[in-house]
């Protein structure tokens, strides 16, 4: 199951221009192998990927180019200017420098939580769904319990218990992952139940494949679109929850994220002092990143549920299959 993570997280930090979906696929090109699992190139996906890649690059490269975000200057709350493109904070720190580091921090947490939550949901959803019986009942019950526990309050309580000096980004990520996997597990279980009853799974069993191999080789690849979409969803949820936590002052103590930026902006009365350059950029980045991931998710949905791409693509596919079927008829006839 570890093999999924690189593939699904690959959606996340795609190098620009090298993303596999970027190659426009005309209807006549045969999409084979992994390519067929990728979403088709739509404006929706293009905009989504563009936004996400831009922000990811900002978080990756930005901190290298930017100055030290913690440098304190005696120019409190200056508006954006040539020296400080996004102005300064109450303590004279450069907002742009801070923004780059905060974006990186938020992305880290999001990615971490996304991977952990996806692995957890895959373990509970796929294994439960495939094995069935008492294991499934137990796993279902467990994920249902996790589902009804209200997420944010639990996160607040757990974060409250962990002393502030031990509250690193790993702890926060773990807490968010533990509270965020259950819904995906339900989705994956339902999908597994449907895939499990396909004949090719039965055929693999008849061929003598071991259960773990049936799960990993026959079932999971067919769940990849669902897994990817659940991963993207987990990343959005994680970034938002982390921002919420940090805003409440319960975030990781040793890292700066978009949430901590907002927390400090709130504490420094940025709103009251009309220092929009302090709180608008982090808010905007969260919103735009969420929007980009949501657009990617919509494109992934189209793979899972081909009906969403009707009528254009479905009919075309039918016509194409019709013609290939015809040629097949001809070839068997000969």
């Amino acid at each position, binding site marked *: 199951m570890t093999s999924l993570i690189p593939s699904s997280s690959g959606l996340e930090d795609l190098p620009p221009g090298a993303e596999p979906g970027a190659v426009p696929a005309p209807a006549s090109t045969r999409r084979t192998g992994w390519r067929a699992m990728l979403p088709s190139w739509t404006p929706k996906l293009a905009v989504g990927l563009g936004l996400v890649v831009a922000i990811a690059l900002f978080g990756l490269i930005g901190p290298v180019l930017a100055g030290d975000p913690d440098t304190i200057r005696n120019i409190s709350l200056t508006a954006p200017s040539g020296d400080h493109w996004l102005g300064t904070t109450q303590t004279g720190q450069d907002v742009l420098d801070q923004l780059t580091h905060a974006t990186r921090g938020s992305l880290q947490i999001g990615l971490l939580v996304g991977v952990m939550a996806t692995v957890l949901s895959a373990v509970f959803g796929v294994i439960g769904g495939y094995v069935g019986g008492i294991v499934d009942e137990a796993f279902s019950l467990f994920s249902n319990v996790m589902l009804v526990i209200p997420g944010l309050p639990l996160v607040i309580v757990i974060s409250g218990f962990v002393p502030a000096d031990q509250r690193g980004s790993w702890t926060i990520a773990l807490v968010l992952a533990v509270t965020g996997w259950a819904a995906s597990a339900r989705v994956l279980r339902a999908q597994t139940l449907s895939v499990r009853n396909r004949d090719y799974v039965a055929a693999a069993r008849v061929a003598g494949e071991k259960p773990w191999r049936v799960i990993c080789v026959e079932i999971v690849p067919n769940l990849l679109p669902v897994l990817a979409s659940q991963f993207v969803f987990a990343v959005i949820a994680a970034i938002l929850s982390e921002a919420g936590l940090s805003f409440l002052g319960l975030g990781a103590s040793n890292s700066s994220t978009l949430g901590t930026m907002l927390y400090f902006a709130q504490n420094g009365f940025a709103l009251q002092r009309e220092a929009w350059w302090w709180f608008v950029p982090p808010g905007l980045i969260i919103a735009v990143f969420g929007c980009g991931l949501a657009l990617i998710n919509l494109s992934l949905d189209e793979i899972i549920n081909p009906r969403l791409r009707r009528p254009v693509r479905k009919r075309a596919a039918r016509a194409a299959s*019709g013609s290939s079927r015809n040629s097949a008829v001809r070839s068997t006839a000969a």
Partner: protein
Amino acid sequence: MTPDLSPDTAPAPGTAPQAPVLTVRDLNVVYQSDPPVHAVRDISFTLHRGEILGLAGESGCGKSTLAYAINRLHEWPADVTSGSVTFHDRDGQDLDLLALGREQLRRFRWSKLSMVFQGAMNALNPVTSVRAQLEDVLTTHRPGMSKQDRRARCAEVLELVGVEPRRMNSYPHELSGGMRQRVMIAMALLLDPQVMIMDEPTTALDVLVQRGILREILRLREELGFAVIFITHDLPLLLELSDRIAVMLRGEIVECEAAETIYRQPRHPYARRLLDSFPRLTGERGAFLRDDGQAAPKTVRDTTPTGPGAADREQVRSDGGVR
């Protein structure tokens, strides 16, 4: 119906001979994909009143596309590029179906020409009763009808297709597949249509259930005199059921003859090949199994020529000419 149908006899007894109800002329349907797929090519045929026209062909031959295009149910990228479909109404009026406006089309569709789809039994709404779904059709198309008349009409059509009217309050999941298919046929009959297009109506059903439904279709045709276009890949079924059969191959009708002629003297090699694909239940045993083109052991009994290239070769059929 008598078995001694010569190609030119009137389709059904009791109806005016050769009065056409639907004329299709040079119809072309193209899927505007890349590259475009010409799914229906220059198809022309005439359907007479009270006639059962069989449309035989394999998947991908365009038979469903044709059915959808006749009823204007095709969606983009399917596109009728040329041709005409004319409906000859009972009162002598001719309707150009391809020129109908949206509202006219809506009124026309179910009341004059109805359709039973493949897998239609799964098209019933699972959360409302059969009665509600049947009455819904009537409220839409016959707004003036009183509640009692509606109910009576629903009971009547259900009885026609051999479903007890007391099952009317059932929900679809309480009925078997064959029963649901009958309900769908009843729904197609509700407005007393003059033409009914049935696209593989029995493919998903058991032979026993299929037999029951076919019997109903024939009886209803006899009683109500509507014409049927029956689409299927099951040629023996068409041979037994229909008056004329059109064989489709790659979007074209390659042969259109009386069923008896197709059975006894198929002219087109494809029609012959299709016919040979179905072993006879009662014929000589083992006559149909051919080799699949590889290493032929001597035990293979018959080498019936296949494929379009076999047109001129002698046709070997174990039971040809049996009467």
